[in-house]
C-alpha cells in the first residue's frame, strides 16, 4: 500500500554518462519539482527500478553498451499492471543508430518516448509529467489488485471455515440427531411388539403414528445427509458403464422389478464420464420417482435410453406417471419442493435436488420434459466417454 512519505515510486531514475548532461538534467528536474536519482550505469538503473520508479530518463549514449539487454529483460519481466515510462534523450538531427536500436529493442515492448536534443525545458518537463501521471495510475492499479487479492484471500478463508463448520454440522446430524430418533423408533416398535396385544385399537393407532412420523423424520435426515455428502464430497470422474449402474439399481429395489413395475432399458446405453456412486444415486432417485408418481391402480412403465449429442450423451428416463405441469419444471429440482400434498405420494422433497446437485458436480445438466397427465421424461446430459 502507498506510504505517504515514500517517494520511491515518484522518483525519476536518471542515466546520463557525461557529467554535463546529467548536471543539466538534474537542474531541470529540481526546478520542475521532480525527485531525481542519478544512476552510475544500466545495472544500477535496473536495480533501483526494481525497488520503485516513476520514470526512467536515459541519454542515448548510455544505451551504447552490451549490457543493454538487462534493461530489456527488466522491462519484459514487469508484472501485468506495470509499464515503466522510459524516456530516451537522443542526439539532434538524423535519427542515430543507437536510438534506432533502442526503438527497435524496446519500442514494441516498452512505454518508450524519444526526446530530441537540444530540447526545450518545457518539452522535457511535460514529457516527464505525463510519464509520472501514467505511472501513478499503474501503482494505483497495483494497490487495487493487492486489495482485491487480500479480499479474495479473506473470503476464501471464511468460506473454508463455513464449509468445515457445515461438515461438522452434518457429521453431528448423522450421529447426534439420528440417535434419539432411532431410539424413538426402536422403543415404539418394541412397545408395539411386546405390548401391542394389551392395547386397544386407539392405542395401537397412536403408536403406529409415532412410528410413521419417526420413520419419515429419519428418511428426511438421511436425505439431507445424502444431499450434503453429494454437494461436498470430492468426486473423480471416470468412464462409467451405465448399463451396469442401471442394472444394479433395479436389482436393489423390488419396487423397480416385475410385477411391481416394468422397466425397459434400451441396451446398450452409451458410456459416460461420471462418478459411479453419484450416478447410481441419481439413477436410483429418478427410477424411484418414475415408478412412484403414477395414478393409483396403474402399472408403472419406464423406458431408459441414451442419445448421442456431439461430445455429450443424454440419458432419458421416461415414465407413464402423472406428469408435471410446465410451470413446475424448474422448481422440482430445488430442495424441499414437493408438488403432491400430504400423504398422496410419500417423499422428502430432496430426491431431485440430489439429482441436480450430483449431475452438476459431474459437469452435466439435468431437466425434465413433461405435461400434466402425460408422463414425464427426465434427462441427464453428461460427457461422452468412449474408453
Amino acid at each position, binding site marked *: 500500500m502507498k506510504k505517504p512519505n515514500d517517494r520511491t515510486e515518484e522518483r525519476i531514475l536518471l542515466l546520463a554518462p557525461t557529467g554535463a548532461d546529467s548536471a543539466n538534467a538534474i537542474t531541470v528536474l529540481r526546478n520542475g519539482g521532480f525527485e531525481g536519482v542519478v544512476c552510475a550505469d544500466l545495472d544500477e538503473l535496473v536495480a533501483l527500478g526494481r525497488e520503485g520508479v516513476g520514470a526512467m530518463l536515459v541519454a542515448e549514449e548510455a544505451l551504447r553498451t552490451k549490457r543493454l539487454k538487462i534493461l530489456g529483460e527488466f522491462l519484459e519481466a514487469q508484472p501485468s499492471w506495470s509499464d515503466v515510462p522510459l524516456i530516451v534523450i537522443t542526439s539532434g538531427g538524423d535519427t542515430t543508430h543507437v536510438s534506432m536500436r533502442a526503438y527497435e529493442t524496446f519500442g514494441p515492448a516498452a512505454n518508450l518516448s524519444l526526446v530530441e536534443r537540444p530540447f526545450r525545458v518545457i518539452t522535457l518537463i511535460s514529457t516527464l509529467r505525463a510519464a509520472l501521471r501514467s505511472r501513478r495510475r499503474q501503482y494505483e492499479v497495483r494497490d487495487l489488485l493487492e486489495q482485491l487479492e487480500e479480499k479474495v484471500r479473506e473470503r476464501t478463508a471464511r468460506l473454508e471455515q463455513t464449509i468445515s463448520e457445515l461438515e461438522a454440522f452434518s*457429521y453431528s446430524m*448423522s*450421529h447426534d440427531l*439420528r*440417535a*434419539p430418533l*432411532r*431410539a424413538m*423408533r*426402536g*422403543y415404539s*416398535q*418394541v412397545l408395539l*411388539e411386546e405390548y401391542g396385544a394389551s392395547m386397544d385399537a386407539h392405542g395401537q393407532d397412536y403408536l403406529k403414528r409415532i412410528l410413521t412420523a419417526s*420413520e419419515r423424520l*429419519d428418511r428426511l435426515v438421511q436425505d439431507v*445427509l445424502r444431499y450434503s*455428502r453429494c454437494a461436498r*464430497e470430492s468426486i473423480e470422474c471416470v468412464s462409467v458403464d451405465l448399463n451396469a449402474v442401471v442394472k444394479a439399481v433395479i436389482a436393489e429395489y423390488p419396487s423397480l422389478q416385475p410385477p411391481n413395475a416394468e422397466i425397459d432399458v434400451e441396451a446398450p446405453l452409451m458410456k459416460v464420464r461420471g462418478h459411479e456412486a453419484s450416478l447410481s444415486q441419481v439413477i436410483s432417485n429418478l427410477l424411484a420417482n418414475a415408478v412412484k408418481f403414477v395414478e393409483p391402480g396403474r402399472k408403472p412403465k419406464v423406458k431408459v435410453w441414451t442419445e448421442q449429442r456431439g461430445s455429450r450423451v443424454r440419458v432419458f428416463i421416461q415414465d407413464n406417471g402423472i406428469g408435471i405441469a410446465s410451470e413446475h419444471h424448474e422448481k422440482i429440482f430445488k430442495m424441499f419442493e414437493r408438488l403432491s400434498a400430504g400423504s398422496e405420494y410419500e417423499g422428502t422433497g430432496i430426491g431431485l435436488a440430489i439429482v441436480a446437485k450430483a449431475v452438476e458436480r459431474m459437469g452435466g445438466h439435468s431437466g425434465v420434459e413433461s405435461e400434466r397427465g402425460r408422463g414425464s421424461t427426465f434427462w441427464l446430459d453428461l460427457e461422452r466417454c468412449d474408453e
Partner: protein
Amino acid sequence: MNQRGPILLVEDNPDDVFFMRRACKTVGVENPLHVAEDGNQAIEYLSGAGRYADRVAHPLPCVMLLDLKLPGKSGLDVLAWMRAQAEFTTHVVIVLTTSREPRDIHEAYRLGANAYLVKPSTPAQLAEIVAAIKMFWIDHNIVE
C-alpha cells in the same frame, strides 16, 4: 468352532445398549454381552486393568462391537491402540456406528477394523445384523 468369549460392546448410548441386548436375546446369542461405555473403559477392559483385573469375570472378548463417536477417546483411538499392542493385533473388531462418512470408513479399515457396519434404524434390522455376526464371526470364523 464356536467362540466362547463374550462380546464386548463399546457404546455410550444406553438405548443402543438396550437394543443390542434385546437383539442378542432375540437371535439367541449365547455369548455374554459386556459393555464398555467409552474408549478408556474399553482399553481398561482389554488390558485387564482396575475393575477389570479379574479375567475370569471379564474374559477377553471374541468379538468387539465398536462405536466410533464416544466421549473422550474415540472408537478409532481405541482401534489404533489395539492394533499397536502385540496382544490385540488380530482380535475381531466390528465397527458399529451411525457414521457413513467416507473419512471414517477409510480410517477404520486403515487402522485394521475387520468390518464396518452402520447402525440400522429398527430393532428388526439390528436382529438381522446380530444374527449375521453370530453366524459368521462367532460360529464360523476362526481366529488365532
